[in-house]
């Protein structure tokens, strides 16, 4: 029987050939997700369908390298050797007896194998026949660090034959060597995360105390890949999922944007045409374009059902043509996925798009949108194509759908520019005309007083209290201090009008949210605005301020009555009531180039309101400057306390509700 086995293996391998050209269809054990509107994920057609699972004669293998000609090299960790497979058939083994437990593997164009051996903590360079060309361990260079260990786990090599070695627990990043084993330097360290508690600890604790804590060190990268341009990509497990993938320039600067990722990435692969694949410990596979745009997430863990395409303990990922190969350590197998026709369309578009062929990419993305209208990346690509075609109106609406504020701003700038050129001179002429007419009218008025009756009638309106209150509001612009004094003396202002201002503030807040242009709005779609929350927040803040300020003032010799505080606060808020909406409307003619106009006017408005409140406190309560300052600080603090108390009460109350509902359920069930 023993003789049969190798023969069988060969035979099997021969049988394992697909009929050419066909694309398999299969019901996937996983759903596939793409980047959707508002930074969320949307479900989409399968990007890769499970193809098969190839059992291999390996033991706990931890790395795999797929060479451009389709050969697969596997670091057979448990058996201490490297396997070379062609059509899933072992055609060579290397390093048996030399290697102990190879965990990292890279093979260059010449077939030279670079191996990180975790058993011997050494790096081996084997020629294409498996002869050892070089072996090196911990570098002796002082630059490496006096106390640093060298625990090589993963390895990659760039075109200039620099070796990048991931050393377990290395906080300094990836260690870089030349082929002679000389340490060149560290590359692309992760930043350590500093929490508020740590900052406080550092400020207040002594060195001895600090040393009691676990050192706050940057997580070390867990795997590495190098693309055809020589860009280095790393994945880091245990870091924020949004920054788990990093792509470094030659200078070691990360240029991969924050994006959706995983905290448990195991391996990363970059294809020649700029598609990035990463697999995590839960068997989820992430695909990005080379600029970090998320294309797809899919994959599922094998929970004992043994369905094709599920993963137990993925260690390495690679791509060959239409196929993704994932090495599974616990299955001792490679799981194969095949690109679907849908993903092929996306890839075709992406390939052209990232190379700048926007026009050529557009039809692909239009096709993608036909099949999934939530595929945000498509809108982006189509928008860029329109922009390049100088079809700005179409670009504008596509950027809007892509939720790309920068692009939208640029397209808008172009459109506005066209409008400006068209209408600027007539507009200027019009304004000039108006100035002339106004000057004429004024002169005429001085002579004939023909507007006197109207002016008289208008002044007469101040007989009505609320009109008077309204007119009074404008007095605050020039003489705030005096005006507050009038309130205190009951001479001007009224409670009724104060409430009108409060209502005005609320309405202005809501309307300004809706009318702020897309570029400047924190919301991508009006449906995200929770009106009830906004109203409650604004009202709550105003009520809290009035209540807290009155309470604080009564115990610190403030003279103001509740009425004074209510009316005073209302009039203090008038800059907001007057200007919030106009500023929001103004944004509709601005682009990012003039962002300063928006932020500056808005800041001005808020500072004005703050000053008004300050003066209000000073005047109404008759404080000195110092007393006012103290009062305002204590008022803010009190507001905070109110909120805290409210929160505590809320938690207690919901516990009570929980308890009662459980009780009722129990009685219902058993009674």
């Amino acid at each position, binding site marked *: 029987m023993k003789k*049969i086995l190798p*023969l*069988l293996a060969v*035979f*099997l*391998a*021969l*049988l*394992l*050939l*697909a*009929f*050419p*050209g*066909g*694309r*398999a*269809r*299969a*019901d*996937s*054990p996983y*759903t*596939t997700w793409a980047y959707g*509107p508002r930074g969320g994920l*949307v*479900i989409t*057609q*399968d990007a890769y*369908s499970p*193809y*098969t699972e*190839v059992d291999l004669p390996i033991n706990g293998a931890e790395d795999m390298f797929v060479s451009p*000609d*389709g050969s697969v090299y596997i670091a057979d960790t448990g058996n201490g050797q490297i396997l070379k497979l062609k*059509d*899933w058939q072992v055609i060579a083994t290397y390093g048996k007896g030399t290697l102990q437990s190879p965990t990292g593997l890279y093979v260059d164009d010449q077939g030279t194998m670079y191996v990180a051996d975790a058993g011997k903590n050494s790096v081996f360079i084997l020629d294409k026949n498996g002869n050892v060309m070089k072996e090196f361990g911990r570098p002796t260079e002082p630059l490496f660090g006096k106390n640093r260990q060298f625990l090589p786990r993963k390895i990659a090599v760039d075109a200039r034959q620099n070796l990048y070695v991931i050393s377990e627990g290395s906080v300094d990043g990836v260690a870089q060597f030349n082929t002679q084993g000389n340490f060149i330097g560290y590359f692309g360290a992760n930043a350590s995360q500093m929490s508020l508690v740590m900052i406080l600890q550092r400020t207040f604790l002594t060195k001895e105390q600090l040393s009691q804590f676990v050192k706050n060190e940057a997580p070390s990268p867990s795997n590495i890949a190098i693309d055809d341009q020589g860009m280095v990509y790393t994945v880091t497990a245990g870091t924020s999922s949004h920054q788990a993938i990093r792509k470094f320039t030659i200078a070691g600067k990360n240029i991969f944007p924050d994006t959706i990722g995983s905290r448990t990435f195991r391996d990363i692969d970059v294809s020649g045409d700029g598609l990035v694949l990463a697999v995590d410990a839960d068997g989820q596979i992430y695909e990005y374009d080379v600029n970090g745009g998320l294309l797809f997430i*899919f994959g*599922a863990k094998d929970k*004992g*059902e*043994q*369905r094709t395409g599920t993963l137990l303990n993925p260690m390495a990922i690679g791509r*060959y*043509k*239409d*196929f993704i190969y994932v090495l599974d350590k616990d299955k001792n197998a490679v799981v*194969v996925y*095949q690109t679907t*026709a849908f*993903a092929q369309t996306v890839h075709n578009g992406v390939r052209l798009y990232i190379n700048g062929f926007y026009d050529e990419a557009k039809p692909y993305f239009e096709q993608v949108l*036909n*099949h*999934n*209208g*939530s595929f945000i990346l498509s809108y982006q690509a189509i928008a860029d194509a329109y922009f390049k075609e100088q079809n700005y109106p179409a670009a504008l609406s596509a950027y809007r759908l892509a939720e790309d504020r920068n692009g939208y701003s640029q397209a808008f700038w172009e459109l506005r520019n066209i409008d400006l050129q068209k209408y600027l001179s007539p507009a200027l002429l019009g304004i000039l005309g108006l100035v002339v007419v106004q000057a004429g009218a004024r002169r005429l008025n001085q002579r004939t007083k023909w507007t006197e009756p109207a002016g008289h009638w208008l002044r007469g309106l101040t007989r009505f209290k609320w009109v008077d209150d309204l007119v009074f509001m404008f007095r605050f612009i020039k003489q705030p201090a005096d005006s507050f004094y009038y309130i205190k003396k009951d001479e001007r202002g009224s409670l009724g009008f104060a409430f009108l201002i409060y209502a005005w503030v609320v309405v202005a807040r809501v309307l300004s949210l809706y009318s702020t242009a897309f570029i400047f709005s924190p919301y991508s779609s009006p449906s995200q605005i929770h009106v*009830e929350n906004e109203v409650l927040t604004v009202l709550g803040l105003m009520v809290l301020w009035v209540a807290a300020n009155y309470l604080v003032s009564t115990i610190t010799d403030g003279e103001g009555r509740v009425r004074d505080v209510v009316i005073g606060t209302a009039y203090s808020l008038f800059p907001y009531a007057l200007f919030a909406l106009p500023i929001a409307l103004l944004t509709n003619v601005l682009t990012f180039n003039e962002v300063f106009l928006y932020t500056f006017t808005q800041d001005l408005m808020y500072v004005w309101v703050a000053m008004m409140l300050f003066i209000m406190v000073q005047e109404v309560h008759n404080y000195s400057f110092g007393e006012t300052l103290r009062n305002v600080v204590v008022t803010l603090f009190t507001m905070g306390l109110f909120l805290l108390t409210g929160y505590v009460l809320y938690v207690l109350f919901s516990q009570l509700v929980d308890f009662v509902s*459980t009780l009722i359920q129990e009685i*219902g*069930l058993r009674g």
Partner: protein
Amino acid sequence: MNRIISCLAVVCLVLGLAVGSQSAAAQGSAPANNQVTPAQGTGPTNNQFTQVDHVDTNWHIDQTIPDNYSLVAENATFKLYVDLNTLAFKVVDKRSGYVWHSTLDQKAADDRLNKSWEAFAKSGVSINYLDQQAVSRRVSLTDSKHTLEVKPVDQGVQGLVTFSDVGITVGVTLQLEASGVSIEVPFDSVKESDPEFKLGLLYLYPFFGATRGDSVPGYMFIPDGSGALIRFSSTTKAKNMLYDRIYGQDLGMIGSVPWDPFVVPPYQASIPVTGMVHGYKQNAFLSVVEKGAAYGEIQVHPAGVITNFNFLTTAFVYNESYFQPTNRAGDGVTTLQHETNHFDVKVHYRFLTKDDSDYVGMARSYQQYLVEKGMLKKTTDASGDIGIRLEFLGAEKQKILLWYSSIPVTTVNQMSTILSDLGLPKADVVYYGWQPLGASSMPPQSLKLDGSLGSVDQLRSLADKVRTSGGNFYLYFDPQAALQGQGGYSARNDLAMAITGKNLAGYSRGNNDYYLNLDALQSHTLGLSKVVFSSGQIGLALDGIGWNLYSDFKSGHFLNRVDAMQKYQELLSQNLGPMAFYAPNDYMFALMKAYYDMPLGNSGYIYTSDVVPFLQIVLAGYVPYYGKALNFSSNLRQDLLRQIDYGVYPSYFLTHEPTGTFLNTPSKWIYSSSYGQWGQEIKNTYQWMNSLLAPVKGQAIVAREVLQQGVVATTYANGKRIVVNYTGQPYSAGGLTVNAQDAVITEAVP
């Protein structure tokens, strides 16, 4: 030496069949020199196609009937021999002389059977019993103290087996029938006399037809998705046996449907049928669970998992343990269900010989069984254009400030316009989300449309138009679902309860659901169906009830799965209107006018070797079946080819508005549906598929053959043959040419 070589050749040949290949090309050539470059072959094959079958008669299986067996019954086709000491039996198929063994006679050296497994293999009856700690142990007739009383019955024997140590008795009746052998265990005969022990699982002849490794060429069939084969092989990728509850897990026992948005759950077994082929086109059997399927669990063991045998059986669940949480943190105890499941068992082995001995023959045999029992009725016309299912989303709701308003997505008039633009007369039109506030609210118990969609009169006149042009008009309705957080049912009185005392919970079409108990379900369904069916133009497209079978443990409402199944059948047979079902189980087949969401593949278990259109062959010629909506297909061409191969009619999900309008609603799973984008595609697809499938409309599938890997020919009863080429290369043979990724229809080769 010669013997070794010939042995090798046989092994290779068998293996070649098992894995399926262009083996003819591979044989004889020196493998090492015959490497295929990546340009020719792009990678390994996968198990999502049917493999090539070859007739191979070069095999042998023990055909002797030992002396301790005596002939107890005989009819025109079969002889039944029984060992009266063990209840083991053997069936001789007189047409071929083939002997079917119900148990293992003699253990061989490399069978990998330990004592317990050997007893299991040799026993006709084995049980798993549960003690009070809910620990399960297996005992078999031949390795435990037992008593056996045997008495003859008409065409068979009856045996009363008592496992003395645990006081559990089961009565097994074995009878010869015209088409095979039936095995019955009436519930009356099941006794648990020792309160310490409960009957857990009952195994009946688990080793029926078992084969060793790859000693017999052939395969096992399991009803997974459209159908799956496991070809006999000396090794398997399976690490454990397949346990597949017929009709899925009982929600009443597990409480809630496991929720993981990243996972697509495997198919549930929708028909209680398994089978085995011993030699392609030579011998086969089919096992149909006629009674007790709702408590049946298909267990499949490919050679190499534990033992060296391929066997498959349906075990029956009488008692199960479950986890009872005792506080909100989720701590609790594992305990036994209080009452033994009450159901009768009947398993029917049907034997096939010669030409019928493949999965097509099995499916045809099952089809014949269904028709004879009145469980499958012909609803399809024998001629004319093929059908197409067009499902429209009516309305969805969105929250504005503090209350809900509906978003009209496709109004009745828009639907009418779309239908006339498409001009497909035979369309099955399904209206989803028609109820007030749309898809994510409870349907009313009378016919009320959401106000923004149009009036009931408009709906009725559209339905009329569709009906008169030869199509069907259905309203989507899930009779079981009680949408969470919605009105329309009483949370206190109307919901079914799990054994743990919690409401059953699950999800469907983007919404979280509870499930109605039988009373509420009946009144909701009758209320609505009476009005809907009243004028005869509108039907109901029923989701849920066709495939979801749960027991209800609410005190006073207790209902087990077998009873639930019967009540559902009774309820729906009162309805005098057309009904279509979404992926129904076999017990709804008699009631359905159309089958929706027909699977095109299976769950993809790595140890299965083929996908076969078993379910399709069962229904072909009787009930039209429609696929899943093609909007969501990622390999459209492949899916269409497969639909043509399987005779599946196309299906689309359509809306008038673009999908963006309901992006923030539970219906966002419909991510591509706007008619503007799909209209042309639908017209083209229909035209193409109609040209191929119309000539075989209403015809049964009589044969299906894989001509070469990736090229499949399906023959229909009227002599037409459809050849589908899945590969990237044109196929031509015998004057027939099929372009790459294309299909043709021809006359069958006589």
